[in-house]
């Protein structure tokens, strides 16, 4: 086999030699295609595996950890929650609408493959600076794509984040998360149960779209590639996915299916190989039986990433009943093979075996690298000059920065109330939905602090996990578990590899402390274009619950005259990275001071105070303090023309970041009870002011409420169009 062909398939020559030696024969082109798909970063985690193994993945509520289509946690009674986050970064840069739409489609299939009905989606999207036309095009396309797919299939989008920063100029990030509800005794796994079971193909016909998508996702980009790679972006059809979802859920609840696997990255290859590997069995598939949209070669069928397709194993006796149900939903269905005892993956086409490989070499012998990494040097401490900073300018700086403005323009393009169970919509600290037919609610939040993580990957990652944690706590949601999406640049650079290793370590530390295991996840590497690496962006999706929907907090002001208290510990202004960056005091990453060490025990202590006060019904509204400090938190809490009057020692304090930071609104009559509770718990608080009508007042200085609100609520749309 010639070297060029091997390299084109994304394998190194060393990797190829391993395969060649094992098989002791030449490979068919189809077999080379299979290794190309299965041995790339996206499918086998060859760079990250060594480090991911260190993460906590289990505790008393974990039903299924990483390794299946989605993780599942226990929510008491017979209720389980399946959830996962996944990236579609590269496809969304090449073709934003279809790239992001199929990202949503893929993650939803991961959820209903487990037998769970999806009940919510979230996302985390990052773009370059809005000044370029390209960013506007990408933002429009991505938001349209996410909305189109989720709206049509009818799953509410309940939250997420949307940020702009220059390192994403040529490499935007699109991470989509889905949450589903499953009955614990009806969870489906990809492991087949019996030898001789029929392998059936369910869903859309196979076409040429997405061939080599997974290996594309593991590649560094150059700008010229963009047009050339567009044909390998999949095209989504949410209507088909809706039918597929209803059809599959009906098959599962009727007990007609043994196991299921969705055809996602690397299509039929990946799903059948994983089936064989999980069950420690073999698979035989006749590619001539695969429903096709157009004539395709065996090679193309194996690698197609056409959307809305599933592979299932059924008992022979159920063939007829399965066909009947799927006919009702007008879904293609074909028996294409069977489970064998050979522990080999065999694909046949035109009466010829085009692939005949032991499962072991594809899965167990997949490469695993221990790449070189550097630990960042210690930073010198320095004092920044704040003497020229004026309060008015600080407010203007926030109100002209997209990252601080209300993002209704984004969220309004998503249906967030379909299914009728939505309690908190996007734009609040966490999205919340009710488990249908119960009093239980699920809250979820997606977060990342790339600037913190670039400054100090280990501490920065702790802050990221803590931010998700606070988002849930602020709503009186008890944090339970995590899914992660590790977006990094090329791990071949030891500095980047260092960010990956250390942030995983930080994730581990925080997850252990909060008892929130990582139950599913995704890794997206090589996020760099024209040699500009993205900031490290390991996104956290945290899920939590409250068993009583009447106990959750709102993030919006409730009543004029109520008092505003601050909990937590302010980071000094010299160590508040976003303050320094967004107030234009520090520009270059090397200028920043190191992060203050985040005390996770303190985070827990304050969180418990918020939870207890919430249960006592003493908290009227609550928001966490993150980027933009208290000021930004207060802006987000405005509602029905209510504003705030506050007094602080130094106005700059209002813009500093926090550890364990929360703004809480309490009634004056509860002031004694709340403050003595906090004192008893040893939790310091700051009484900074009260809620007023149509006004914003800081240290007796009055600001034009409607002018600020108009900018905050409406300028996002003006800036991006």
């Amino acid at each position, binding site marked *: 086999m010639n070297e060029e062909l091997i390299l084109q398939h994304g394998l190194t020559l060393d990797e190829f030699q391993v395969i060649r030696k094992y098989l002791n024969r030449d490979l068919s082109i189809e077999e080379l295609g299979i290794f190309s798909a299965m041995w790339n970063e996206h499918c086998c985690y060859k760079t990250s595996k060594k480090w991911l193994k260190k993460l906590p993945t289990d505790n008393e509520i974990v039903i299924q950890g990483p390794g299946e289509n989605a993780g599942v946690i226990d929510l008491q009674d017979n209720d389980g929650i399946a959830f996962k986050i996944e990236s579609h970064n590269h496809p969304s840069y090449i073709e934003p609408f279809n790239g992001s739409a199929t990202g949503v489609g893929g993650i939803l299939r991961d959820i209903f493959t487990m037998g769970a009905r999806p009940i919510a989606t979230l996302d985390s999207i990052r773009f370059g600076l809005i000044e370029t036309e390209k960013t506007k095009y990408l933002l429009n396309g991505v938001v*349209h794509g996410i909305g189109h797919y989720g709206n049509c299939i009818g799953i509410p989008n309940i939250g997420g984040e949307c940020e702009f920063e220059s390192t994403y100029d040529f490499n935007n990030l699109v991470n989509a998360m889905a949450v589903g509800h499953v009955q614990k005794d009806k969870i489906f796994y990809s492991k087949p149960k019996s030898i001789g079971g029929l392998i059936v193909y369910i869903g859309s016909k196979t076409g040429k779209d997405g061939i080599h998508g997974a290996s594309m996702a593991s590649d560094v980009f150059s700008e010229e590639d963009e047009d050339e790679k567009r044909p390998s972006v999949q095209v989504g059809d*949410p209507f088909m996915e*809706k039918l597929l979802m209803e059809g599959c859920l009906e098959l599962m609840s009727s007990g007609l299916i043994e196991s299921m696997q969705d055809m996602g990255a690397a299509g039929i290859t990946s799903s059948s190989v994983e089936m064989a590997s999980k069950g420690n069995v073999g698979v035989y598939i006749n590619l001539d039986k695969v429903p096709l949209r157009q004539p395709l070669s065996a090679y193309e069928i194996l690698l197609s990433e056409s959307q809305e397709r599933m592979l299932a194993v059924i008992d022979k006796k159920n063939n007829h009943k399965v066909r009947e149900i799927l006919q009702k939903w007008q879904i293609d269905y074909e028996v294409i093979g069977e489970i064998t005892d050979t522990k080999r993956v065999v694909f046949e086409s035109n009466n010829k075996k085009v692939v005949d490989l032991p499962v072991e070499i594809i899965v167990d012998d997949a490469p695993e690298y221990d790449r070189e990494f550097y630990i960042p040097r210690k930073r010198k401490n320095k004092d920044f000059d704040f003497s020229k900073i004026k309060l008015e300018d600080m407010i203007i700086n926030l109100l002209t920065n997209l990252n601080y403005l209300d993002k209704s323009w984004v*969220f*309004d393009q998503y249906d967030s109330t379909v299914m*009728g169970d*939505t309690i908190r919509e996007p734009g609040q600290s966490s999205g919340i939905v009710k488990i249908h037919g119960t009093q239980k609610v699920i809250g979820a939040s997606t977060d990342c602090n790339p600037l913190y993580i670039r400054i100090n990957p280990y501490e920065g990652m702790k802050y990221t996990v803590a931010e998700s944690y606070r988002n849930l706590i602020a709503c009186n949601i008890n944090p339970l578990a995590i899914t992660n999406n590790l977006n990094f640049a090329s791990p071949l650079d030891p500095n980047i590899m260092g960010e990956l290793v250390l942030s995983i370590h930080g994730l581990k530390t925080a997850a252990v402390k909060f008892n929130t295991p990582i139950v599913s996840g995704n890794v997206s590497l090589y996020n760099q274009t024209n040699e500009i690496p993205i900031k490290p962006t390991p996104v956290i999706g945290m899920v939590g619950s409250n068993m009583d929907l009447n106990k959750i907090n709102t993030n919006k002001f409730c009543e004029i005259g109520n008092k505003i208290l601050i909990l937590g510990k302010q980071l000094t202004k010299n160590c508040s990275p976003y303050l320094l960056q967004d107030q234009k005091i520090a520009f270059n990453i090397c200028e920043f001071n190191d992060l203050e060490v985040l005390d996770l025990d303190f985070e827990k202590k304050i969180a418990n105070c918020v939870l207890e006060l919430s249960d006592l019904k003493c908290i009227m509204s609550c928001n966490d303090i993150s980027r933009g400090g208290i000021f930004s938190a207060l802006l987000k809490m405005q509602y029905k023309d209510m504003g705030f009057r506050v007094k602080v020692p130094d106005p700059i304090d209002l813009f500093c970041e926090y550890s364990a930071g929360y703004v809480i609104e309490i009634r004056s009559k509860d002031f004694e009870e709340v403050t003595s509770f906090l004192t008893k718990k040893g939790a310091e608080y700051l009484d900074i002011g009260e809620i007023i009508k149509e006004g914003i007042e800081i240290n007796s200085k009055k600001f034009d409420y*409607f002018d600020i609100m108009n900018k905050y609520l409406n300028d996002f749309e003006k800036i991006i169009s």
Partner: protein
Amino acid sequence: MSFKSAVITFPGSNCDRDALCYLKDLTKGEVHNIWHEETSLPKVDLVILPGGFSFGDYLRSGAMASKSKIIDEVVKHANDNRYLLGICNGFQILTEIGLLEGALIRNKKLKFLGKNCFIKKKFKNNFNLSIKDNQILQIPVAHNEGNFYCDTETLNLLKNNEQIAFEYCKGEFSNTEENINGSIEAIAGITNKKKNVLGMMPHPERAYSDFHQSQDGRFIIESLIS
């Protein structure tokens, strides 16, 4: 006599379950779910055509669903002077069938709109009896094609016959819009001439339970039952 109702499900309907819950919780009566390929409808007081993307909105929103097998029965039900309510995609289907006038075209900003909106009653009918004049209701919308359009002649007919049931309006606080999607005369819902068929873009079935942000969607079912 208890109130009986039914919800039709088309492939791609995604608010059928919500509509079923809405009816079950508020009418306390019998509620049927009918698949679009059925050829008979039980005798009920109210039929809902739910929201969603029937047949993927391919061709035109509501166009394919208007040719489904069950539609003959739905038309008979309406001709029998019984209540028929189309919500969102259901409204689009009703205009495609021809039971309601006008058409729903793309929102003025050419973007999907999923948010709370405010509406008030325009002319009185059996669907809005228990709503006071000038009472502002908060109900979510979620649509891409909700911009109601008709020619002047039709608009005059709708007015003269008092067929406009709801119109969009500003909320009680600043930063709310008068007419969120550009509908002609801010029309949010219309009835047929006999006023037993209502089509509306806002989703009352997402605003009735205690945990919803608003409970104003209750008024429609309460009006019909009273």
